């Protein structure tokens, strides 16, 4: 229990650090949203002054931070200048879209990586291993930007997939099943790209973890007892090799909000990435901080989930 509490404390400390860091960066920032507003002749100087006062832009940093922290505790992530709306609902709506994309691709990547990695470890040095290793090496050196653009180009030229966005024009008029099918069609490309870009690292880790236990005496004993190959690999070898994979899984969960930024922007998926990019370009302070915080929360949560799983899976961690 103490172990878990300690890890939880660690995560909270991390979030605290991230928030301080983001506020510090805002203090270093030259100019803000209202400076650009001032240049707009259609907005009177009085309005700008009033808005500045309303959003506390001129108050000292520590005070603003304190106020923001107080608001966060009450579930309020501040206010978006550009959208003229609270930041939290804006971020949530986009985060859900991102999650639809990333949960699908993460699941798919793990479902493919586990058997591939195990197969490759089992046939170490054989033809399947060499084929899988070269394939992952090729995927590893192609940046996801190129992969995404390449698939987009393919989709445009063949017309097999809808390009960009999350729904077709007449989405609202579709029936329930039609809506699901429409989103699935739009999901196909980004999910493929994301899966392909996360796959090589996963496969390599699974392969390394499994091959580190394959030579162990208990596995050879089990084999000599006539335990079938599949049971041997999935029932005995996999749990023994699980620790690094559980940590990696935690990392996958942590990256659910942040890992797809590039793909979202390229494929114009209405997720958190494009919103954050817009917010940066508009200097929409609290929206940026909120977005960064939200991804940091996911990271901390992913790490904590990995700790929980490790605690559950490995008795050595339970006994200090």
């Amino acid at each position: 229990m103490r172990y878990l509490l300690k890890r939880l404390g660690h995560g909270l400390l991390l979030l605290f650090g991230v928030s301080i860091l983001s506020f510090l960066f805002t203090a270093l920032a030259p100019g803000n949203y209202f400076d650009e507003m001032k240049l707009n002749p259609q907005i009177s100087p009085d309005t700008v002054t009033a808005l500045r006062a309303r959003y506390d832009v001129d108050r000292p940093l520590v005070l603003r931070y304190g106020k923001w922290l107080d608001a966060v505790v009450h579930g309020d992530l501040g206010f978006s200048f550009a959208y003229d709306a609270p930041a939290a609902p804006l971020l949530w709506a986009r985060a859900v879209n991102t999650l639809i994309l990333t949960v699908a691709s993460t699941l798919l990547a793990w479902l493919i990586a586990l058997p591939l990695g195990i197969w490759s470890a089992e046939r170490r040095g054989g033809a399947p291993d060499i084929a899988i290793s070269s394939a992952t090496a090729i995927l590893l050196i192609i940046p996801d930007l190129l992969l995404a653009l390449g698939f987009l180009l393919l989709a445009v030229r063949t017309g097999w997939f809808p390009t960009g966005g999350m729904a077709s024009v007449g989405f609202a008029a579709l029936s329930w099943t039609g809506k699901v099918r429409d989103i699935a069609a739009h999901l196909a490309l980004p999910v493929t790209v994301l899966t392909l870009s996360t796959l090589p690292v996963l496969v390599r880790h699974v392969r390394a973890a499994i091959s580190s236990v394959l030579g162990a005496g208990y596995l050879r004993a089990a084999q000599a007892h006539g335990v079938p190959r599949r049971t041997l690999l999935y029932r005995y070898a996999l749990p023994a090799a699980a620790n690094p994979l559980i940590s990696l899984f935690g990392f996958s969960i942590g990256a659910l909000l942040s890992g797809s930024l590039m793909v979202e922007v390229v494929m114009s998926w209405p997720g958190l990435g494009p919103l954050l990019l817009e917010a940066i370009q508009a200097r929409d302070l609290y929206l940026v901080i909120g977005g960064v915080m939200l991804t940091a929360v996911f990271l901390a949560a992913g790490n904590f989930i990995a700790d929980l799983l490790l605690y559950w899976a490995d008795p050595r961690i339970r006994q200090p």
Partner: protein
Amino acid sequence: MKITNQNRRKVYAWLIVLVGLHLVIACAGFFAPYDPTLQNRERPYAPPMRVHWFDATGHIHARPFVYSQQLRAGSFDEYEEDKSSALPMSFFVSGSPYKLLGVIPLHTHLFGAGETQVFLLGSDGYGRDLFSRMLFGGQISLLAGLMAASLALCTGLLIGALAGFFGGWTDEILMRVAELFLALPWLYLLFAVRAFLPLSVSPLQAFLMVALLIGAVGWARPARLIRGVVLSAKERDYVPAARGFGASDFYLLRRHILPSTWSVILTQAALLIPQYVLAEVTLSFLGLGVPEPTPSWGNLLASLQQYSVLTSYWWMYLPGLAMVPFFLGYLALASALQTSAEGSKI
């Protein structure tokens, strides 16, 4: 850290490949036929020209040639080869002046074809040669990656050595901060920092800013690794022995401890440089990095964000592929260095 002969050979082989690739980019002025900002308003979005050896009648030519491109009648962005006018390619031709490696003024280019521009990879919307832009763009992207990586490694070395050598609360604080930087998704962190810097700056400023930014965000990982190496090196018997003879902290660090971090630094460099090149590419692609008209691998791809470019001008994608051989080289080098340093690892 024992390095087997076979591994040593592998490391050197990949190093040579990488040096060769970088030399091509460094001498972009020579290999590129034109200035990267030279516009040809007569031929926007010209497709890649095919290099021929045989002409339409089946005759083989002594030197390769291209057919000049002409606008298809009634169209303003579709070209066709003019089979009647073959333009022989000549080599080591004199052209626009450039500075080799930034210092030697020259005007000899590897190839050209007289007055008509040869677009090996096609041209962009302003009629600029994509092949030249690809080579010159590599200079920006690779230099940004190299600078960012050396910055991150130097900072990481300093902080890691301090934390590992002095231990105690110095170590505690530095490593907490490092964890903070490690835990953040780096692209988001990069964005967050970028968000609060001025948006429109001159190309040189933008370039320096991007390199600094990436380096400043990335020091944490090398710092942690170097700290580990320093911690274990500190415990070797010869270190307390030297201290017993009256060696100062600085002497110990310089003479005994830092040399043992060398292989970690090399491996980290091979891993970090491609990552940081990609970071520059990403930032410039999104319009947060080096601005037009200065080419970089990132902003060369940026026009693909427009749907019309994506549908009609596929060759705008080609400059992006220049990254792939570099990343392959660095990945192979990193894995060769890793196996030589640790026996076997993924």
